[in-house]
């Protein structure tokens, strides 16, 4: 398979994404919405990974965005449309503040701290009962955005996905690509070439957190409900991670392919084996990590490039 084929595939996906609401019923639209949401999260996770930092904090920032949005609407009377950018800005602000501390950490230490922070956010929301509604969560009295109209909600998620894709493309095509790749490959060399490592890491962390927060806002606006165990669910960390790994990391299209494949398989497994699907899913992820460290993306490369990809 070659570059042209990848391009054709991507165009087909884009056409399908735009055409879907015209003929699909509520169930396929619901599945597609889920896949797009996870796809956008996978892309945002990959964007930070390009600097070498492995975040396990996706669910944490997603949950923060979700609560920022719903509390903005319920407690501050914010219009629903405004709650989504507000969620993005709030998550960005939180990321900016914690970034000053945690972006000094590397490798496993960074990963574990992001995981712990997500848990801390969940516990805070859990315990601020009067403001957040505690473990029972909050319900939007005015109901779901767009009155629950399935195709409008679909467009909303698609818009969120396009924001993530645009940001990822910006990361790939601008000097950010050089900064993050240099940092991932060798921080000392990067410094000696004038790369202000902390600044670029902070930028990447804040932007990806804003995207994750925005998606949390979109999620909560389309369900009209938030509870700590729902919006801080580990699924929001693990599934995007698996999708990016399956599709191939350090690119935009890797997470796109990975999310479609894993999303469809997960849905199919859910129907076939309602109780065992997560086990099968887990086994798939392990196989991908063990045997395809470069993901599916590697299969889409010309043969000559493939060998290099493996050693990279």
């Amino acid at each position, binding site marked *: 398979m070659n570059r042209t084929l990848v391009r054709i595939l991507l165009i087909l996906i884009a056409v399908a994404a735009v055409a879907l609401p015209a003929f699909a019923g509520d169930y396929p639209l619901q599945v597609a919405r889920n896949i797009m949401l996870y796809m956008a999260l996978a892309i945002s996770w990959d964007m930070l990974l390009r600097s070498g930092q492995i975040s396990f904090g996706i669910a944490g920032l997603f949950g923060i965005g979700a609560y920022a949005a719903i509390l903005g609407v319920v407690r501050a009377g914010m219009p629903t449309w405004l709650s989504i950018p507000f969620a993005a800005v709030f998550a960005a602000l939180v990321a900016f503040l914690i970034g000053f501390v945690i972006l000094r950490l590397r490798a496993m230490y960074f990963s574990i701290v992001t995981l712990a922070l997500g848990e801390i956010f969940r516990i805070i929301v859990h315990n601020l009962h009067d403001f957040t509604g505690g473990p029972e969560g909050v319900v939007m009295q005015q109901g779901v955005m767009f009155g629950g109209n399935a195709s409008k909600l679909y467009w909303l998620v698609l818009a969120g996905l396009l924001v993530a894709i645009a940001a990822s493309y910006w990361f790939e095509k*601008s*000097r950010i690509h*050089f*900064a993050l*790749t*240099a940092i*991932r*490959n*060798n921080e*000392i*060399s*990067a*410094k*000696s*070439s*004038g*790369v*202000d*490592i902390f600044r670029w890491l902070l930028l990447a962390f804040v932007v990806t957190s804003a995207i994750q927060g925005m998606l949390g806002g979109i999620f909560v606006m389309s369900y009209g409900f938030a509870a700590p165990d729902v919006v801080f669910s580990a699924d929001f960390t693990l599934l995007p991670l698996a999708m990016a790994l399956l599709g191939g990391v*350090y690119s935009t299209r890797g997470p796109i392919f990975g999310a479609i494949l894993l999303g469809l398989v997960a849905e199919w497994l859910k129907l076939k084996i309602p109780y065992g699907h997560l086990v099968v899913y887990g086994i798939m992820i392990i196989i991908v990590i063990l045997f395809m460290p470069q993901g599916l993306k590697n299969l889409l490369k010309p043969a000559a490039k493939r060998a*290099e990809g493996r*050693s*990279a």
Partner: protein
Amino acid sequence: MIKLRTTNLTKRFMGLVAVNNVSFSMEEGEILGIIGPNGAGKTTFINLISGIIMPSEGRIEYKGQDITWMPAHERARIGIARTYQLIHPLENLTLIENVMVGSIFARGHSLKEGRRRAENLCHELGLTDLERDTSRLTILEVKKMEIARALANEPEVLFLDEVMAGLNSDETKELIAMVQKIAREKNLAVGVVEHVMGVIRELTHRVIVLEAGELIAEGKYEEVSRNPRVIEAYLGGGAA
């Protein structure tokens, strides 16, 4: 004009004094040899000047400005560049992209202008086929890329930490001529660490000798190489 000066520069690693009270200066247009036995502190000295590590004591001045505590990436921007003894190419970037990094970050050029300048540098150094993966380069090409990457900062002071190591004599000759030409054309102050004395003799105007972190001698290669203390340091260190 003095470009770089250190005063009583000292670096301790736990109990070990890797650089001990070193005061020296480097002039514009000068090629300075930095020699000494293995473990003498040459690389540590360059690490201190380029800001990769911070000193325990002492002071570093660049063009009259105190840069003792300045972060490494800022030193790269004001004109200090170096190569690494243990070369680490940015393996997920191509040859030309490796060189571009300095142009766009140390110099702040746009991607387009950065690429143009990086291409010029590569041509000057005789590097071709610039879209190659760094894993496809010969040793000589890797060394040239390392030099090109440092030059992409458009530095005024450049340190080369054993760039000739691992090259055969023809390649070494080529690189010596190249370094001389570049230093002259760009009016650089160059600090050269090499173990091969022939290279030092041919390339440098002046030499400083480190032993166990201390500066024990300074002068033209011919003088320094006759200095009994230097001879003893090399014999004692086991590397002649």
